[in-house]
């Protein structure tokens, strides 16, 4: 563990906030006309999966957690847990589903993920920026509604529903942005 100034908190790091590990999702700096600069930090509570926001003074001391990330393979989902396996030692590690909010449906056994550990306890999972998934269901093109003009919903092998261009067919392989779940391109 090391102490950093709140003004130096980085997106993607893990900090101890109210004695609980939190993953930093976003940092914005605000300099109000009166008063010192503040870091508005949006973070995920790694115990509950809930997102919280807190405004730190830039000079506040914050504990940054030393984490190790280990490359692992997705095995299966079991109730509230996702089971990952170390491909070298075959050791299996359960990770609570709530730590992968919105990303469970992007996991396939093909992709390599990094499980983040702090003192041997899994804190979270880091997916590659993009994953390749196969389309298992795609309707014929229909006129899109106004907000999604030129797009249609297709279902991926993992159950993920993606808004994709009208030309996408069943069997296509798509590249998906794991931070948003959005279609990026066709990569057949």
């Amino acid at each position, binding site marked *: 563990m090391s102490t950093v100034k709140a003004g130096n908190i980085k997106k993607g790091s893990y900090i101890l906030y*109210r004695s609980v590990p939190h993953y930093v999702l976003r940092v*914005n700096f*605000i*300099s*109000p*006309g*009166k008063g*010192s600069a503040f870091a508005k930090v949006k973070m995920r509570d790694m115990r509950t999966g809930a997102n919280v926001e807190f405004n730190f003074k830039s000079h506040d001391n914050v504990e940054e957690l030393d984490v190790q990330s280990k490359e692992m393979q997705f095995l299966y989902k079991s109730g509230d847990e996702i089971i990952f396996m170390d491909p070298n030692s075959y050791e299996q590690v359960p990770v609570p589903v709530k730590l992968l909010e919105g990303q469970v449906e992007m996991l396939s056994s093909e992709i390599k993920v990094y499980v983040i550990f702090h003192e041997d306890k899994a804190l979270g999972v880091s997916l590659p920026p993009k994953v390749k998934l196969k389309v298992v269901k795609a309707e014929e093109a229909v006129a899109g509604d106004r*907000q999604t003009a030129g797009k249609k919903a297709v279902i991926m092998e993992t159950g993920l529903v993606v808004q994709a261009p009208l030309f996408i067919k069943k069997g296509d392989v798509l590249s998906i942005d794991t931070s948003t779940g959005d279609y990026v391109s066709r990569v057949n």
Partner: protein
Amino acid sequence: MQKNWQKMRQNQFFTEKLLLREQVIKAIRKFFDQEKFHEVETPLLVKSPGTEPYLEVFSTKLKDEHANSQPAYLLTSPEYAMKKLLVAGLDKIYQICKSFRNQESFGNNHNPEFTILEWYRASADYKKIMDDFSRLMLFISSELQNYYQEIESDFADYILSRLKNNQVEYLGKIYNLQLPYQRMTVAEVFAQYLKINDQELLDRDKLYNLAQKQDYPLAKEESWDDLFYQLFLNEIEPELAKLDHPVIIYDYPLSQAALAKKKKDDPRFAERFEVYLAGLELGNAFSELIDYQEQEDRLKSELLLRKKLKKSTYTLDQDFIAALKLGMPESGGIAVGVDRLIMFFAGVADINEVLFFPALEIFK
């Protein structure tokens, strides 16, 4: 990543969303025209920008024809020049211009260069400005409804589905712009949300204890201003964001209002207000401080603080002090973030979606 101008080539809806800016600005001009205000233009490149201790400015050099140079800055607000125009005899003025703030985040509610609307009324105070602001919001909403009713497009339908009479849907929630706005003093909001009275609010140790109780990371020597603002940001702003209408927060503790007039009946507070809507801080207003001596003292101490904080320093705007010395009428004035108004009416959460060329695209 596609840039906004590239997205415009493919997406008519996106293009029309960016063009909402034009309609909002037209509505603002029409409003002030009807109110018989003069539109003025003052320099963006100045010798003495605002002294707010925590705002960083853009510094440059101005060279004459012999290449002799002197420091010059992009302003953070056109306030000083507009007040000189009040002294010059103009009594109702407004300006829509760019302002610049350095060392801030790109995106969300901030862009290093942004569009500011300021207006000033002589022989008026901040209460009159509160009234102006609320009527302006309703006026913009109604002008947009009139305009988009004549347009056949998906975007026009989208706007008309969100703007109905006095109501505006923003990010899934409906806000009522009906007059009059709810008004609460700073002391009242602290009493309501943090259960402390006005005396405790001004007591640094009391705020320290409150922050400690909330488990804030704290150093021993935290200042009253920092504690005040941190409690406001964490405990009060989120509550204000839950309201389904605009709210005016007024009468700030004196140290939070360097350009505002003290309250006659309670000099611990100054006549400043901020207006919040949907979690957006839309405007900051004062009954203007017109006492030249007090103004000079406050600006000097701010410049000293800037030096201590290692921010750019510059000379005090003596011309501004000279103007006050000549006699500025009692006045009220306000600065409004135009980009944020546009975000609200466009229904977007990120300023980068209402700028043709966000700084993020250029510099990051």
